[in-house]
């Protein structure tokens, strides 16, 4: 929660959080959802001042969050380095197993008679009279009145197929995974630099890219991450891995006793204003966007699915959605579709 921008973004995240508890029961997989609470680690005076301001805004819209000094922070996470200045804490930050969640959604969709076609590359989107009529894939053509572009970091490419330019770009994140060890972290941790990097790419270069750490249910520590614009390249880099390890070990010295078992990298769907693009595209009837969540895709998945379903069914929505509308990226041109 704490990593979300105060405002509509945070309200959306809060709504999503409420839905997760139900999902734990509703989905056929164990999504390992836990409200473990989260901390933003503060290492410098400048960060302290920035976070003070940031949490005031968060508190103003009712988020349960507070500042902790070094002593209080160490009480919550005894393995943190005593060289930090302090942290913030919110009991609302939660953890979920993203693989099981995705599987859970897929299996639940299947149970409700959704067909999932795997290994199908989208070749084109059929349109007629300024309306979508279907999708052409390497596994055949599928007729449809509505097409939702939920292609993640590739959503920009899918929009291009119908001549609509959507500014969704891949932003690489590298992760280092340790062996499953004894519990050393009770909360999800991010650094104050992480928040800066997330919302102001120019800051990311100066202040480093920020780190995130959490310990999964079975004991593996996930150490992250980088935020890089390198196209669709999903490779790990030496410098990326080294930086993550150095910076996380500086905050959590006990990492010295852990082993790295794997690294991996993924692509986040970046948008220029850090907000997802949700809703109908004005110039092509039946074409909807549900993409661009950057690193919040998992956290916002329940509310995104819910909102999209309501939109597609033409139901009433109480959440104000203008900030997420595809309309805000006006440069997508209005090309006429025959």
């Amino acid at each position, binding site marked *: 929660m704490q990593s979300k921008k105060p405002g509509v973004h945070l309200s959306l995240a809060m709504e999503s959080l409420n839905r997760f508890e139900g999902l734990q029961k509703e989905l056929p997989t164990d999504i390992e959802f836990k409200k473990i609470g989260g901390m933003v680690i503060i290492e410098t005076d400048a960060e302290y001042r920035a976070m003070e301001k940031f949490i005031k805004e968060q508190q103003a819209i009712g988020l349960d969050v507070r500042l902790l000094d070094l002593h209080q922070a160490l009480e919550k996470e005894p393995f943190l380095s005593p060289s930090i200045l302090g942290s913030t804490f919110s009991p609302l930050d939660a953890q979920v197993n993203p693989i099981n969640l995705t599987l859970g959604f897929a299996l639940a969709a299947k149970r409700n008679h959704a067909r999932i076609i795997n290994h199908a590359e989208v070749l084109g989107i059929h349109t007629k009279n300024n309306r979508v009529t279907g999708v052409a894939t390497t596994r055949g053509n599928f007729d449809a009145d509505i097409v939702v572009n939920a292609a993640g970091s590739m959503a920009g490419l899918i929009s291009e197929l119908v001549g609509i330019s959507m500014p969704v770009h891949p932003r690489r994140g590298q992760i280092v995974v340790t062996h499953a060890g004894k519990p050393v972290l009770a909360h999800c941790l991010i650094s104050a630099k992480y928040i800066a990097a997330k919302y102001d790419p120019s800051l990311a270069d100066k202040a480093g890219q920020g780190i995130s750490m959490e310990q999964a249910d079975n004991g593996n520590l996930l150490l992250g991450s980088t935020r890089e614009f390198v196209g669709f390249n999903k490779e790990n*880099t030496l410098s990326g891995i*080294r930086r993550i*390890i*150095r910076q996380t070990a500086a905050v959590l010295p006990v990492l010295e*006793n*852990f*082993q*790295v078992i*794997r*690294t991996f990298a993924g692509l986040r769907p970046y948008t220029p204003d850090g907000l997802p693009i949700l809703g109908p595209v004005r110039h092509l009837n039946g074409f909807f966007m549900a993409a661009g969540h950057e690193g919040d895709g998992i956290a916002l998945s329940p509310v995104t699915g819910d909102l999209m379903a309501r939109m597609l069914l033409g139901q009433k929505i109480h959440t104000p959605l203008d900030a997420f509308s595809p309309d805000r990226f006006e440069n997508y041109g209005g090309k006429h579709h025959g």
Partner: protein
Amino acid sequence: MNVQYHVIIVGSGIAGLSAAATLAGHGLDILIIDESGHRGGQLLRKTRLKPSCFSKFEPDLMKSKGFDLVWTINKDPDIDWLFNARVLGIFKDRRLLVHIENIKTHGEKASEKIIEVRAENLILATGAREKYLPFKGWTLPGVMSLGAAQILMKSYGVLPAHNTLIAGTSPLMMVLASEILGNKGKVTALVDENSMIKKLTFLPLIKNHWSKLLEGAFYTSRMFLNRVSVFQGYRVIQASGNKGFQSAIMAKTTPRGDVIPGTEVRFFSGALLVGYGFAPNIELPVQAGCKLEYQENKGGWVVKVDETLESSCRSVYAAGEITGIAGAKKSFIQGKLAAMSILKKVGKINARNPKKIFTAEIQRLLFLNHQQTAYSSFLNRLCQAPASAYAAIPDETIICRCEQITMGTIKKNIQQGFDTISSLKKATRCGMGRCQGRICGPVIFDIITALTQKKPEHIGCSLSRAPVKNVNIKAFLNS
């Protein structure tokens, strides 16, 4: 130690040594990296440097060849060795991330660290590891692979047990039995999955490899002379014991590979050694960006190479078992061939190396390399357990040892449509543990094949990322 070398060779087994010896004396900076503390890989592990008189009768001629190679390499001052060092990953432009264990520098306490070296040309000779056919109780202490037992005996002089039962499909079974007998141990029985008839049908494939036939005859006669009971066409279906292995049940199989009920026999023994052939160590080539191909006759997923042994990745060459399992001789030939391709590329064909002779030598090696295809096919078809054996693994049997995932879970998920290596991994966590699927990966591939009959390219193989093996975070912080 430099930070950059003309050639870096990963693996100092027979392929790596033969490559280095060929490159020696040409004024190239060469680095050989090996994760063990000795040269020569499994073949030369703790073998006496000066072969005794008796070893002359050792049927494996490659060993003495291996020592000759080491001799040649040591004469070249431009060749650096890096032992107890593990290549963790290969990054862009052939940059290697290498973990070095406890180097003692002058006056400093030994500590592990991580270094980076760059190769203008890279020869990957990473060898192979053993494959398994899981059965009930295969995770019990006392059940081990043939290779593990061999290391026990060679490196530590310890027998697996007083009485040892040996089972599987691999020709290495007889070698092991012979080594146990040579060390005054006892072999309870040798249980060979392959029936005599099946073996005879593969025999034409090695008609040009008389030395291999002699080797086989040598070991067979040794079994006979020592009155080892040999069961052919039998499979171990269960290992049991309190705390550790005590007994195994084996049963006769049909030519198709199904167990015939009612033929079960129980054996009591101190240890059980199993071997079902080998799988190439393709993790580093995959990281380097080399394309793979699936070849049943070569032992599964192997690195795709052209005639010069260059992979799909420029200046990255593959030699030895990773281009197809075929034993030491092929590794010896390929190491040489890869090295000569590099010599040719960097223009080292000169007065000392007249082009005509050079070209003739390459032609000869290509011919020899091709000759090994038939033996490779023999070896891998002999070792591959039948698909029905993988399909019949009981539900409660553990497949992924690190994450304790059972056959039942794997089967259920395959039926639900998670029928590729990567989707099954995400659905069940198989291959996500400490060994990162090095043990269960090939097994799971065979299980998916057996249950779905899908094509290898649709099942895929697991994606490898650095580090190839676990590494202490401390090592990163020390460097």
